[in-house]
């Protein structure tokens, strides 16, 4: 089963990468507000149900994929 994890810098955390992207977009003439840069992790996970897959992937997030001090995450399971 394929799952996608979106990891984002938490609100209020300084995101210099996002700021650099924001500035570049403005230089290109795009009218943008804030840009924030996170990370996407696609994983194939062995599980017999989407619930089980979600549980496993959330455990992966807690142990490794995100640092809860600075990052939030969302898990999407593609059934």
């Amino acid at each position: 089963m394929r799952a996608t994890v979106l990891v984002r810098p938490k609100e209020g955390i300084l995101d210099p990468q996002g700021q650099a992207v924001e500035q570049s977009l403005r230089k290109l003439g795009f009218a943008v507000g804030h840009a924030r840069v996170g990370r996407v992790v696609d994983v194939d996970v062995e599980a017999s149900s989407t619930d089980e897959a979600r549980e496993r992937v959330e455990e992966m997030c807690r142990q490794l994929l995100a640092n809860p001090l600075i990052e939030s995450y969302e898990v999407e399971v593609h059934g």
Partner: protein
Amino acid sequence: MTPRVVVIQFPGSNDDRDAVWALKALGADASLVWHADAELPDGTGAVVLPGGFSYGDYLRCGAIARFAPIMEAVIRFAADGGLVLGICNGFQILCEAGLLPGVLRPNASLSFICRDVSMRVERNDTPFTSRCEPGQRLVIPIKHHDGAWFAPAGLLEELESRGQILLRYEDNPNGAVGDVAAVTNEAGNVMGLMPHPEHAVDPLLGSGDGALILASLLDAARDASVSVALA
């Protein structure tokens, strides 16, 4: 008694040999221990996690190295009161492993910074700063891209009130909250710092101030060895 200090070598460490050299120059019996080993050598008085780019610094700096087999032994050693010093990438690993509070984030400038910086010693009644004077100004080089130490609101104040901040930058180079350059755990036996003391042990190379940090550690490791031998 010569204190025995081990420097952990991860794939991607690159200051491991410099750390061994500096510790030996200061009188330690220093050696490398491979990350895949399960145990620390008998008689280990202190552990140093060196600078570098362990496991390519993939995902987040230190996030993968914290699961190296040797880290279980390092975590047990620290829990028993053993002295652990993390330098740069070693600091990042200790934060990710939960042995130290906070986390290291990319520099506010997004630039890799490599230069001497000055910092102040907050207190000297610790195993890592005993050779310094309180308020002493140290000049030690930094070389990192992800050196901005971060702690969420409230945590920094807690750490300050418990005296866990040991070094602060005079002119914050990387955006670290509270100008923090070095922090300890609550018990005070684990410290991480972004500056590289092992690159500042000889005034011929610009500064000998890093030797104060490493020699403090060796004094404490020597005392710890003596108390183990007496026990």
